[in-house]
């Protein structure tokens, strides 16, 4: 009986999947302009062309490397994430905030036996932690010049906290994490509102006039990435505390 039921479900699932595969195949061979799935030529009218040329505001702007452009971040993915589509990124931070809040809310709380960590881990933990913090800090500070950025930086910083928890060393407590989370979150919006009062538009990058390729360029981009990194790190550390808290 049970086998029959699961066999039935398998057959239904395979039917649905083959139907979808057929449909995608049909779409990809259909004539006319559309999804030619394996075609690599993208239309010239896409919005990315203006992002790459950095001439959204001025059609004819040209620039050289290490000269001023409208958006002075050298990494164009970063300039899309933290400047052209900054509002999306702030919402994404809120998504992580909500889910981690829900995580802490529904996870069953029960007593755990605290195991003594090994001596080697205890001794070496601070060095590892400092290494992690340095890598994470480098990542978000250089997020506008090289690959990386706030989210992986936050993840790496949070592993420093994880090592601390595993080694049994006291690093931060719950209350501090909550404060860091809220302060970082509010300051992202505070900068947005500040730009409303300075420039009249929300989330505008109001520090301009830098040169591409400098460490201190990109206006508010490194600031935002730093805030995002701290927020993500605080939220992810919350998860580890939920798992390995001594109670």
């Amino acid at each position, binding site marked *: 009986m049970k086998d029959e039921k699961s066999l039935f479900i398998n057959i239904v*699932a395979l039917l649905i999947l083959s139907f979808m595969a057929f449909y995608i195949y049909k779409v990809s061979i259909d004539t006319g302009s559309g999804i030619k799935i394996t075609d690599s030529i993208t239309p010239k009218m*896409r919005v990315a062309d203006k992002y790459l040329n950095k001439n959204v505001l001025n059609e004819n702007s040209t620039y050289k490397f290490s000269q001023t452009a409208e958006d002075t971040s050298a*990494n164009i993915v970063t300039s*899309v994430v933290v400047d052209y589509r900054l509002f*999306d990124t702030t919402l994404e931070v809120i*998504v992580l905030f909500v889910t981690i809040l*829900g*995580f802490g809310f529904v996870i069953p709380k029960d007593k755990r036996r605290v195991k003594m960590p090994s001596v080697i881990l205890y001794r070496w933990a601070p060095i590892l932690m400092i290494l992690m913090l340095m890598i994470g800090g480098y990542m978000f500070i250089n997020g506008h010049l090289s690959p990386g950025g706030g989210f992986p930086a936050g993840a790496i910083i949070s592993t420093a906290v994880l090592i601390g928890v595993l080694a049994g060393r006291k690093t931060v407590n719950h209350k501090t994490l909550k404060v860091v989370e809220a302060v970082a979150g509010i300051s992202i919006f505070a900068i947005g509102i500040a730009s409303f009062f300075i420039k009249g538009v929300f989330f505008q990058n109001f520090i301009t006039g830098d040169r591409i390729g400098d460490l201190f360029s990109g206006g508010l981009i490194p600031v935002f990435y730093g805030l995002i990194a701290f927020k993500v790190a605080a939220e992810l550390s919350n998860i580890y505390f939920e798992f390995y808290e001594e109670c």
Partner: protein
Amino acid sequence: MTKVFILSSLSLVFVGLYGVLTRKNIVKILIALNIIETGINMLLVAFGYIEGGLTPILQSDLSIANLDKMVDPVPQALVLTSIVIGLGTTAFALALAMRYKNTHNSISIRATDEEGVNV
């Protein structure tokens, strides 16, 4: 190249979808969901890929001359967002799954079907 990327991502999507539809264990459903998500992220980035394209980072004067050979940065930005959303979904669903195991004493998604029988 583009063909390889798109076919591999579509294959991941289909395998994951099969897993979500047929598995009963909640943890395995979530793993399958993550496989779909990886596939769709790869699909999005592959849509922006250009044969022999360059990384969209300005490194020198040379890279400014080659702006039209750079791969599309917008899908990459969208995928950055979607990876973090995937982490959020997984974390929330796993916490719910742990609570589910406490309350239902089972990890099967069909355990709710016997609701009202032994409550």
